[in-house]
């Protein structure tokens, strides 16, 4: 295997036009190193999460802990009502958000891709302007909390991120370049409404772009924490997504550390231990790390669609 990798390519043209074997070895080394640097922290945190409390207290975080234990995951399982709840929250927000996001982006993308649509020009401007100018964080926060009353609701974490100009443009470009005109014409001749054409003719043949945007949205919602930080206060812990649980643990610890005099040993003990915190990190990271290699091509594809100027 190793030998094969080092061999100069034999196929046709590449045989005459390739880098020297030493350069190839050097480049390979660089990329292997980069790959290791990228994965090292994930592996490290995983090892911490399966280390025993005692060995961490003794040696600190280490790649080679004195003793392994699954205690932290067991505790995690026992604190189901908090951690489990926030896991369910994260999953729920991700599913609902992705679904809403897909409906919003695909419908407008489809409408904008129709060459003869009456308000195409107006809609395009309506879409582009938010990319250039926004009211800013304060305005967004005040409008969402004071007018829409989203504070301390799930919707605060779902609605504001459901749609974006970029996603709509990707959708539109895909529909523009790949939908055969004949299909829509034939639907119209058969007397189907645009809604029917869209759901029964267009969507089934647009799975690649649906997958791409769906994945963008899924990862965004899974990684969402800023929404929770802004809109969910500490009296509504039952709404926390996993990402925000991590932040709030960290906050509590630094708060207690700053006010050490007020807190007894016992209350410090109630905090999740270090291994447990790292175990929560793993619960967040593992689904991503295990799934993204399979979805990667959609991301690359989506980017190249989006890069086409429109």
């Amino acid at each position, binding site marked *: 295997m190793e030998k094969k990798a080092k061999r100069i390519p034999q196929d046709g043209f590449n045989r005459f036009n390739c880098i020297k074997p030493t350069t190839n070895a050097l*480049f390979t080394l660089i990329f292997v190193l980069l790959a290791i640097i990228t994965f090292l922290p994930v592996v490290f*945190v995983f090892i911490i999460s399966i280390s025993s409390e005692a060995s961490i207290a003794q040696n600190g*975080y280490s790649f080679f802990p004195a003793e392994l234990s699954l205690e932290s995951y067991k505790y995690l399982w026992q604190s189901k009502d908090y951690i489990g709840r926030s896991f369910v929250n994260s999953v729920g927000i991700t599913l609902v958000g992705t679904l809403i996001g897909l409906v919003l982006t695909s419908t407008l993308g489809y409408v904008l891709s129709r060459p003869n649509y009456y308000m195409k020009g107006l809609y395009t401007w309506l879409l582009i302007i938010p990319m250039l100018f926004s009211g*800013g*964080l304060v*305005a967004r*926060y005040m409008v969402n909390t004071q007018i829409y009353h989203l504070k301390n609701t799930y919707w605060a974490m779902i609605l504001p991120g459901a749609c974006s100009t970029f996603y709509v443009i990707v959708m539109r470009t895909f529909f523009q370049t790949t939908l055969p005109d004949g299909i829509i014409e034939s639907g119209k001749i058969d007397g189907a409404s645009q809604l029917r054409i869209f759901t029964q003719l267009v969507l089934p043949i647009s799975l690649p772009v649906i997958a791409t945007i769906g994945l963008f949205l899924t990862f965004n919602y899974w990684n969402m924490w800023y929404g929770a930080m802004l809109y969910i206060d500490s009296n509504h812990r039952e709404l926390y997504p996993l990402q925000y649980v991590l932040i709030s643990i960290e906050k509590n610890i630094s708060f207690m550390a700053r006010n050490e005099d007020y807190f007894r040993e016992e209350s410090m003990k109630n905090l999740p231990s270090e291994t447990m915190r*790292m175990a929560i990190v793993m619960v967040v990271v593992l689904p991503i790390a295990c799934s*993204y290699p399979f979805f990667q091509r959609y991301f690359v594809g989506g980017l*190249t669609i989006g890069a086409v100027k429109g």
Partner: protein
Amino acid sequence: MRKDNLAVKGEAAPIRKKRRKFTWDDLELTLLSLPTIAWLIAFCYVPMFGIVFAFKNYKYKPGKGFLYSLFVSSKWVGLKNFEFLFRSPDIANIFRNTVGYNIIFIIIGITLPVALAIMITQLYSRKVAKVCQTAVFLPHFLSWVVISYFVFAFLSTDKGLVNSLIVSMGGEAILWYQDPKYWPYLLVFINTWKTFGYSMVVYMATITGIDQSLYESAVIDGANKWQQTWGITVPLLRPVISIMFIMNVGSIFSTDFGLFFQVTRDSNSLINVTQTLDVYVHKALIQSNNYNYSSAVALLQSVLGCILLIIANIVVKKIDPESGLF
């Protein structure tokens, strides 16, 4: 050139149809797009009126509601909010951090991924290239919260790996989260770690799309790898690079809040090197409820970014008429 343009315009004019009537079909499409348009108006356009915060001294009037308080009972103060802002002693530092980090991020964020993308497409083994590409893509999918825990595992004062290594080699443990002198480098490194894989893949997709016959004819003309890179690959990457460049310049006044707030654990001792405009706005809003300053800053950010985006686009188009965002 000029004549061509005229000719094209002359042809285009008769083809353009008269304003059509609004048909049944249009109505159906409008209904189909209604939810998204409603979303755009609710979450993008309504908040735009919030810029009045920047010119008012907002005071909530109990029992009267938010809109009344903002538009009617709060006093107009003109540009006073901006004046206060520029008199605040931190502001120069905040601008320096924001723009400074962004310039470094842009330079590294373009040169490094382009170089790596060119390198990885040269590897003999497709398999090694594929595996490495997949591996370095991972950080793109991780949130700053998770990354802040990664960083903590290495930099924690009493248990972190780096300090253990330093101590075991006889050195003295470093209080990483209290010493600002390391953080400019750390932040640049962490940001590069998170973003380079993604950008590399973007450039790679463009490189693999380049017509092979260009390289074939270059080889026949006796060009070596180095000449091919500078003569073919880089010029063909230029449109993508310029789009990336313009977008980055347009957001030079905004930074990744997660990087500067979460990863640094909001440590007060580091504030000199980590406070950027976004962190400032967030803190003014959440911690001190100062709506007026923070929205003045946000407005400034938005307007300056918009202007810069347009300027960058003009400059790029001057240099290379084929490139540019719009």
